[in-house]
C-alpha cells in the first residue's frame, strides 16, 4: 500500500468579481511509496501549491480523494509542510516556533533539529533577526521535528542565492537520510528535482495533471556530477516541451 495516493478529478476555483471560474487541477492522480522522495515539476501556475494544500488537508473543496496511510500503531499519519515562505510566527522565538508544533513532552527535539540544520544556539532569536536562508532552515527543521510520515515541500528554496540553495539541498538530503520519510517536493526547477528526487512527476500547464513520470536511477552520490544531471535534463526537455517555460523561469525564480 502506498504511503500517499491522490486522485483529484477536479479542483475548481469559483470566480470572484471580475475573475472567471478556473479549473486548477483536472485528472491529477499519483501514488508515492513509503520512504520515497518524489518531485512534482511543472510550470508556474499549474496548480502545484493547490495540490499540496489539498494533500495537507487545508483545502477540502475538490472532487476526488486523498489517502495517507495511517501509522503502524493505527494513529493518523503526521503531515509536515514546508511552505514556500517560511511562515514562522514573528512574535515567537525560533525555538518556540518549533515547540509549537510538537507535543509538550517532545520539546527536547527542538535543540536536536536546530542542530541538524546548522542553527544550534539560534533558538532564542526572533524570526525577524534571521536571513531568509536561516528562516527556511527553521521551517525545514520544524517540519522534520514532528517526525512526519509525509513531508510536503512547496518550492522551499526559491528566492535564495545559488550557494545557499546548494547548502540547503544538502541539509535537506542529510536530514532525510537520518530521518527517512515520504517526501512530496514541488518545484519548477528541473535541475533541483533531478538532484533531490527518486522519481519526477511532470505536470502539465493549468489545469494540472501528470503528463509523465521520470525515475532518477542515478545514485545520489553521483549527482554532484552535473554533466549527468544536464544530459538527463536535456532529454526530459526534448520530450516535454511544456517544461521549457518552466526551465526558462528558473533564473528569475
Amino acid at each position: 500500500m502506498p504511503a500517499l495516493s491522490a486522485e483529484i478529478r477536479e479542483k475548481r476555483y469559483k470566480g470572484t468579481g471580475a475573475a472567471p471560474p478556473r479549473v486548477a487541477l483536472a485528472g491529477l492522480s499519483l501514488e508515492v511509496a513509503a520512504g520515497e522522495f518524489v518531485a512534482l515539476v511543472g510550470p508556474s501556475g499549474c496548480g502545484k501549491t493547490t495540490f499540496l494544500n489539498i494533500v495537507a488537508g487545508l483545502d477540502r473543496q475538490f472532487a476526488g480523494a486523498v489517502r495517507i496511510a495511517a501509522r503502524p500503531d493505527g494513529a493518523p499519519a503526521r503531515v509536515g509542510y514546508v511552505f514556500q515562505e517560511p511562515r514562522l510566527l514573528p512574535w515567537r522565538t525560533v525555538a518556540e516556533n518549533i515547540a509549537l508544533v510538537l507535543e509538550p513532552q517532545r520539546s527536547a527535539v527542538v535543540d536536536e533539529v536546530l542542530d541538524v540544520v546548522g542553527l544550534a544556539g539560534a533558538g532564542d532569536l526572533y524570526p525577524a533577526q534571521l536571513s531568509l536562508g536561516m528562516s527556511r532552515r527553521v521551517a525545514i527543521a520544524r517540519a522534520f521535528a514532528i517526525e512526519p510520515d509525509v513531508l510536503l515541500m512547496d518550492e522551499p528554496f526559491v528566492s535564495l542565492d545559488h550557494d545557499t540553495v546548494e547548502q540547503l539541498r544538502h541539509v535537506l538530503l542529510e536530514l532525510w537520510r537520518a530521518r527517512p520519510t515520504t517526501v512530496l517536493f514541488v518545484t519548477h526547477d528541473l535541475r533541483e528535482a533531478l538532484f533531490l528526487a527518486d522519481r519526477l512527476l511532470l505536470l502539465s500547464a493549468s489545469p494540472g495533471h501528470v503528463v509523465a513520470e521520470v525515475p532518477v536511477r542515478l545514485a545520489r552520490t553521483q549527482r554532484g556530477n552535473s554533466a549527468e544531471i544536464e544530459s538527463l535534463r536535456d532529454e526530459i526537455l526534448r520530450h516535454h516541451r511544456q517544461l521549457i517555460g518552466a526551465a526558462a523561469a528558473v533564473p528569475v525564480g
Partner: protein
Amino acid sequence: MVVAQRAPSWLRASALVQRIGSVALFVAVWQVAASAAGSRMFPTAGAVFAALVRECVDGPLLFHLGVTLARVAAAFVIAMAVGSAIGIVMGRSRTIDVLFDSWLVLLLNLPALVIIVLAYVWFGLTEAAAIGAVAVNKIPAVAVTLREGARALDRRYAEMADSFRIGRWRTLRHVVLPQLYPYLFAAARSGLALVWKIVLIVELLGRSDGVGFQIQVFFQLFDVTRILAYAIAFAAVIQVIEWAMFQPLERRAGRWRH
C-alpha cells in the same frame, strides 16, 4: 535588544523634566489666576491640594475612590470581554457581520446618557444596572476595533497552524491572539478613557457612593474646592493605571518587533 531601542538616557530624562515643567507651569498659572480672581468658585491650586490631603486623611475620599475604581474595573472587564467576542465573531463571519452591523452602528450612536437612564428605568437603581450601563456604552467601540483586528488576521499563519494540527487552544493563544494584541490594546486604552468618565455620570444619577455621588453632593453645596480635589485624585489614579499597567504590557507584547 530592547535597551538598544530606547532613547538615550539623557533624552528620556529631559523628556521627564519637560513634562514636570509643563505641569508646574499649569499649576503656577492656576495659582496666580485664582489668587487674582479671589472667588470661592475658583479656588487656588494650594487650596485644592490642601482639601485633597484633608479628604484623604480625615475624609471619605479613599472609600469613594475605591468604590468607583471597582465599578470601573468591573465595567471595563465586561466591556472588553463581550466586545472582543462580538468583534471577533463579526470579523470572521460575513453573515453575522451583515446581520448585526446596523445594530452596532445604532449602539455606537446612542448617547451614553440615554443608555444609563434606560438601564436605571428598566433594571432599577441597582449596582448591576449601573455597571451594565457603563459596559454597554463601551461594548460597541471595542467590537468595532476587534472586528478590524479579526479581519486583518493573516490566513497564512492559520494554514500553518492547521496543517500541523496544533489544536484550537494553541492556535488561539500563539497564532490568533498575538495578531490581535495591538487591537486589544487600542480598545483597552480608549475603553479605560471612556469608562472612567461615564462611571461618574452613572454614580451621579443613581448611586449613593463613589466619586460621582460625592461630586453631586459638593455640587449642591457649591463646594468647587472639593469637586476639584476628587477630580484630581481620580484622574491621577487612572493615569497611574495607564502608566503602570498598559504601557509595560504593551512593551512586553511588542518585544519581538526590532
